[in-house]
């Protein structure tokens, strides 16, 4: 029952070649009669086999749009996607919808936040899990059913054979999310993108699902991109953490460095504004003032400057450039812990 978390220690994976390499990804949504909205404004990151990379940020920071763009799941109209997302030598953003369909579910799979709205309510769980194998591996439903039962068992669903004929509404929230993970794993994908996979779940169920994801990464060597707003989830799960603000990555580091020595004022602000279960009580929280509505455009300033306690004059006049590489980095004129 007990899980000393250290069994899932970080593997040194930086030596291997990236499996997914996102470069300067930009997603712009056109708005009638208004300035186009840059949801993702130049994001670059690498994911290596067996690595877990976190994209962290609050609503509107572009973390979900990034994943949808990589998966080719954005609507075809009303937006432009620029940049590249090279997966195994191929730029996913240049593939035709048909080519993308061949890869989605087979080599790259995704888990969404709300399992009830990502499952078909009128189709039995078994059929939904076998569908992926029928599409990509050419199996008949009869051949795929036993495999579906194995998958359900593997993700910790009790009595999997009986569950195959259940409909989504007959499962609890945690069970649904497990079924969704089983679907994502059906074709042994090399890359798994999880967009807030535990946000809709209770903490005890969240702990179960996170433990499951950790074990899967260790066992199968699947690369995992974890998109979340919860810094606690990131702290226990991700090898590398990217903090997003206003559509750009503002800080990157391995989780130990990022949490023990955060440098971007936004990262520090986030850490200071969450109450910690293990902190002494009675200390007031220090929230980040203002809201994302105060953001400046990245073109001519730092988007975070109006809410930043460290802001200098230069912060509202120039764009802070990315200083760093694909392992650590920072986008700030006046980081914390440095006096100017």
């Amino acid at each position: 029952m007990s899980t000393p978390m250290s069994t899932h220690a970080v593997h040194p994976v930086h030596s291997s070649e990236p499996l997914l390499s996102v470069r300067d990804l930009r997603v712009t949504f056109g708005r009638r009669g208004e300035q186009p909205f840059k949801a993702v404004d130049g994001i670059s990151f690498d994911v290596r086999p067996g690595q877990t990379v976190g994209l962290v940020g609050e609503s509107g920071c572009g973390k979900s749009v990034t994943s949808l763009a990589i998966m080719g799941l954005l609507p075809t109209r009303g937006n432009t996607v620029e940049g590249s997302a090279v997966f195994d030598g191929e730029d996913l953003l240049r593939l035709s919808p048909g080519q993308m369909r061949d890869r989605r579910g087979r080599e790259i799979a995704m888990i969404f936040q709300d399992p009830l709205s990502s499952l078909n309510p009128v189709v039995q769980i078994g059929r939904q899990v076998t569908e992926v194998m029928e599409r990509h591996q050419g199996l008949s439903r009869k051949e795929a059913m036993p495999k579906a039962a194995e998958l359900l068992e593997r993700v910790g669903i009790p009595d999997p054979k009986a569950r195959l004929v259940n409909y989504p509404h007959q499962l609890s929230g945690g069970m649904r999310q497990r079924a969704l993970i089983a679907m994502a794993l059906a074709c042994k994908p090399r890359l798994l993108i999880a967009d807030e996979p535990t946000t809709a779940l209770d903490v005890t169920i969240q702990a179960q699902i996170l433990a499951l994801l950790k074990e899967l990464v260790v066992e199968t060597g699947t690369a995992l991109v974890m998109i979340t707003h919860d810094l606690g989830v990131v702290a226990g799960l991700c090898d590398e953490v990217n903090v997003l603000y206003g559509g750009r990555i503002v800080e990157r580091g391995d989780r130990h460095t990022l949490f023990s020595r955060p440098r971007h004022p936004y990262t520090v602000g986030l850490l200071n504004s969450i109450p910690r279960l293990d902190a002494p009580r009675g200390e007031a929280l220090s929230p980040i003032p203002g809201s994302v509505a105060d953001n400046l455009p990245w073109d001519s300033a730092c988007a975070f400057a109006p809410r930043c306690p460290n802001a200098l004059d230069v912060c509202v006049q120039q764009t802070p450039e990315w200083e760093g590489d694909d392992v650590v980095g920072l986008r700030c004129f006046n980081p914390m812990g440095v006096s100017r």
Partner: protein
Amino acid sequence: MSGSTGLDPAHDTRTGAPGEVLVEVSGLEVHFPIKRGVVFDRTVGHVRAVDGVDLTIRRGETYGLVGESGCGKSTLGKAILNLEPPTAGSVLFDGVDIASLKGEALRRERKRFQMVFQDPMSSLDPRQTVEALLLEGMRAHGLDTDASATHTRLRELMSAVGLPPSGLKKYPHEFSGGQRQRIGIARALSVGPDLIVADEPVSALDVSIQAQVINLLQDLQEELGLTYLVVAHDLAVVRHISDRIGVMYLGGLVEESEAGELYDVPLHPYTRALMSAVPVPDPEVEDSREQILLTGDLPSPANPPTGCRFHTRCPWRQETLCDTERPQLRVVDVAGSSPGHRVACHWAEEIARGEIERHEVAPETTDESSWGAPRDDGSPFLAPDGPPVP
């Protein structure tokens, strides 16, 4: 926000000294009928949302109720305000049994207890201006007799929750989520209540905004001597904001304690599991701490387990008592535990002293049809005690 909230305490009708009992809940039960049938509604069972809860809230304190979805914490919060009529039991508010009040008497009493809801977008009428929203409650309770006094009062309310007076003419959609929650708080404050029940007041907000609203609630409490009942699933938030915490599981309180002590000396197995499941934003802590993973889901509140409600998932379950006798909240003699610390567990002392070993629990399905069916052995994949398969 710090310092004065700008609210004139003269508008508030609060009386009584801090520390005295404001709310006394005893034996409270709220059961919902389950209906079947096309022509005739037959009642085939009851969902026991709240099933025998005793608690007291003292004036000026913040009582936090935590638990997972379906544990009945929101229903309990509503039942205390008589928004959900109790099936049994009583709620004494300042000595008056609210559960027995009806009609006009209840309506008049309502200005003394108000509620703040989780989702401000769906709890604020989108077609009313903020001014109209704030005035509605005051009007209903006859508090807007003097136009100029009302004018001042509205501006005071806005400044108390950190919004500009110009916001009074705006509609809810013109505000961000955090600002909308501030409007929800201003609306609750407008009638000068003693008690505010806040149901998940910050869970719909981004983390940086959560802290703003938490601080606002605390400042207002200090300024106005408010009493809060905060219902939330986020243990860290509840621990931060509350003086005392009650942990709920399947309709009943399993543990109640002063907030700091609950974290230092958790006595109930469910509390321990719940706290170990909360992720901490610190990799060193995450790597070293021991997690108690519960198996399975919350059992159905329509068909709760016999004996201790938690025994089907409890890693410390014993052969005797647990499945036959429902434990009552009691004070236990354990090092570090104060007399205000109550727990509903037959074996709390033995577990605290480490005399009972933790053991594996097979997951059980929540399906009603599978109730009583032989247990599955559980997936070998989820048994984290063995070494991970390479």
